[in-house]
C-alpha cells in the first residue's frame, strides 16, 4: 500500500540557512503523528515546506503525497490534492468575507478535481452546520476573514476550514498556541471528529498538553532539522518530564 505521505532525506533552507537536515517521515492513512521539538528545531519550516510557502529552497530529498511528487506542485494544487495546513498564526484579510473565502476555496478545489461546484446556499448550509459544532457565531461568517477575531476564534475558524475542505492529510502547526483550555477543547473536539481511516494527521506542537486532547498514534522528536527519536504516545509524557535538552545534545 502506498503511504499517504513519505518524506525522504528532506533538506531545506531559507535565506541560506539550513533548517531541515535530512528529515525522514512516513504517515499512513488513519494515523496521527505528533511532531514535538524545541524552538528552532524546524517544526514550522516542515509545515511550510509541505504546504509550498515561497521562500524555502529545497536542497535535497523528496516528498511523495499519495505517491505523487508533492514538491513539484503549487500550493493550491497541493490543497486540491488534499493537503491542509492549519496555520499557527492565521492571517487577517480585510475586505474578504469569511463565507466568500470559504466558498471560493471549496469550489476552487472541487473545480481542480473535476467535481461540480456547489451553489452558495449549499455551501452556506454546510458551513452553518460545521460552525454550530465548533461553537462559531454565524454572524462571524459575514465578517472579514479573521479580522478582529480572538486567538481562539481564529483557531476555530481554521478548524472549520479543515472540516469543510475534508483534506486527506491535516498538518496542524502549533494549534494550541494562544488558546485557553476551553478553546483548546473545542478545537480538539473538532479535530477528533475528523479522525478517519482514510485521513492522516501531523500534529506539530511544543507542549504535551495538546496531545491529551488529540491523542497521537506515533510521537516524533524533531531536533536540528531531523527526526531524532520516534515512539508511542508515552514519549510525549516522557518529554514533558525531561525536556528537550538531551535531544539537542544528541543532534549536535
Amino acid at each position, binding site marked *: 500500500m502506498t503511504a499517504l505521505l513519505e518524506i525522504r532525506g528532506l533538506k531545506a533552507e531559507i535565506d541560506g540557512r539550513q533548517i531541515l537536515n535530512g528529515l525522514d517521515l512516513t504517515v499512513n492513512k488513519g494515523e496521527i503523528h505528533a511532531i514535538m521539538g524545541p524552538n528552532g528545531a524546524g517544526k514550522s519550516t516542515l509545515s511550510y515546506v509541505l504546504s509550498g510557502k515561497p521562500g524555502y529552497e529545497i536542497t535535497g530529498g523528496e516528498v511523495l503525497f499519495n505517491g505523487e511528487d508533492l514538491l513539484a506542485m503549487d500550493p493550491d494544487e497541493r490543497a486540491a490534492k488534499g493537503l491542509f495546513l492549519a496555520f499557527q498564526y492565521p492571517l487577517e484579510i480585510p*475586505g*474578504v468575507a469569511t463565507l466568500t473565502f470559504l466558498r471560493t476555496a471549496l469550489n476552487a478545489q472541487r473545480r*481542480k478535481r473535476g467535481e461540480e461546484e456547489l451553489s452558495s446556499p449549499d455551501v452556506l448550509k454546510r458551513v452553518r452546520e460545521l460552525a454550530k459544532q465548533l461553537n462559531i457565531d454565524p454572524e462571524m461568517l459575514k465578517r*472579514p476573514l479573521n479580522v478582529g477575531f480572538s486567538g481562539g476564534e481564529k483557531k476555530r475558524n481554521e478548524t472549520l476550514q479543515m472540516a469543510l475542505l475534508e483534506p486527506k492529510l491535516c498538518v496542524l502547526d502549533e494549534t494550541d498556541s494562544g488558546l485557553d483550555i476551553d478553546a483548546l477543547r473545542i478545537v480538539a473536539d473538532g479535530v477528533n471528529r475528523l479522525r478517519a481511516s482514510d485521513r492522516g494527521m501531523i500534529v506539530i506542537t511544543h507542549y504535551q498538553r495538546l496531545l491529551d486532547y488529540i491523542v497521537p498514534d506515533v510521537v516524533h522528536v524533531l531536533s536540528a532539522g531531523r527526526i531524532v527519536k520516534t515512539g508511542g504516545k508515552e514519549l510525549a509524557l516522557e518529554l514533558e518530564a525531561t525536556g528537550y535538552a538531551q535531544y539537542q545534545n544528541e543532534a549536535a
Partner: protein
Amino acid sequence: MNAEIRPVKTAAEIGFADLFAAVRQSLPGGRDIEAVRRDAFDRFVAQGLPNSRVEAWKYTDLRRLVRDAKALAPRPDADAWTAARNAGAVFAGLDLRRLLIVDGAFVPELSDLAGLESGVRIRATAEALSADEMVLPLEMAGTDPAAALNTALAADGVVITVAADVAVERPIHLVFVTTGTVPAAMFTRSRLELGSAAALTLVETHEGPDQSDYQVNAALQINIADKARLDHIKITGEGTAALHIATLEASIGAGADYRDFGFAAGGAVVRNQIFLKLAGEGTTASVHQASLLSGRQHADTTLVLDHVAAGSQSREVFKAVVDDEARAVFQGRITVRPGAQQTDARMMARALLLSDEAVANCKPELEIFADDVQCGHGTTTGALDDQLKFYLMARGIPEKEAEALLIQAFIGEVIDAVVREDLREALSRAMFAWLKGRE
C-alpha cells in the same frame, strides 16, 4: 511688441488655435458668450498645454501626451445613433433616466425625457447657449488651461435644474458615448443646479471605440444649494487609445451633502480634475475613487478642495490598482480658509502595484489657515501581500484568483461608499469584469 518669452508652440497647440479660429463663429451663443469663449481661449494660449513644470499637472504632461488637435466631431447621424443606443451598459437593467450625449451632442430623441418629475428641468446646453444664458464661465477651474479650452470650445451637453425641496428618486444617467471610426474631438459642458433641500443621484458614464485616439474634454459644473444632497457617480470607461480630460467643479452650500464616487478603468490618458468648494457651514463632502489600470494607461485624479466656512467635514479615499506599465496619479490639495474653524478633513491615497513597471505618484497637500481644525492625510504604495496570497493558495485558490480576491477586497472599500445598492452592485460587476480581463 511683445517681449514675453514663450516656448515654441507644439503641433497640438497650433492645431487648437486653428480649430478655434475655424469654429468659433459657428459655436452656439451670441456676442457675450463669444467674448467668454475668446477670453478663455486667450487664457489657454497664454499658458499653452500644461507640462510637468506646471505644479497642478506635474505628472501629466499634456505637451507630451497630446500630439495633435482633432477636428470637432460631426453631429451624430443615424449610424451614430444606432451605435450609441446601447451605451451605458454598465448600468443596464437599472431604472435610471438615461440622457444620451453622442459625439458631444445631446440627443433628446435617444434620451428618456418622459414623465419628468415636477421641478426637474432638462435642456441641451446648446439651447441654453443659444438663448445667451451664461452657463460657460467656471468659478474654480477658470484658470486651468484644459478647463479654459473647454470653455472656449464647448458646444453642447446637458443643463439640469432641480427645484428646491424636490427629492428625485430616479437617478439621472448622463451617457456620454463616442462613435465613429475617424478620431475626433468632443468638448462638452454640462451643468446641474440643485435647489435648497433638493436631492438627486447623478450618474455619468463615458465610453467609446477602442483603438481610436479620439479626444474628450468634458466639464461639469454643479451648484448645490443649502441642505441639498447629491450623489455623483462617474465611470470613466473610454476606448483604449482615447484621451479623456474632465473638469468637475462643485460649490456646496451650508448643511449640504455631496458624495462623489469615481471609477476609472478606460482610456489611454485620463485626467479627472475635481474642484470642490465647501461654501457654507456644516457642509459634508466625500470623494471616493477607484482606478483600475493596465497596459500603458495613465490616469490622473487631481482634487482641489476648499473649506471656506466653519464646521465642515470632508473625506477622500483614492485607491488605484496598477498593472503592467500603467501609471496612477493622485494629487489632492485641501485648503482650510481662516474662517473655516472646526474643519474635519481627511484624505487617504493607496496604490496597489501589480507589476515591477507599474507606477503610482501621490501628492497630498494641506494648506491650513485656521487654528482649530482636524486635518490628516496619508498615502501608501505597495504590492500584493505575499503572505496573504499564500494563505489563500494554501486553501486551494489558484494564484490569479487569490490576487483577484485581494484586489477585490482592496477596491471593495471604496465601492462600499456608494449608497444605492443597485449602483454598488453594478460597480462591483464592473470591477469583476476588469479582474476577469487579467486572467
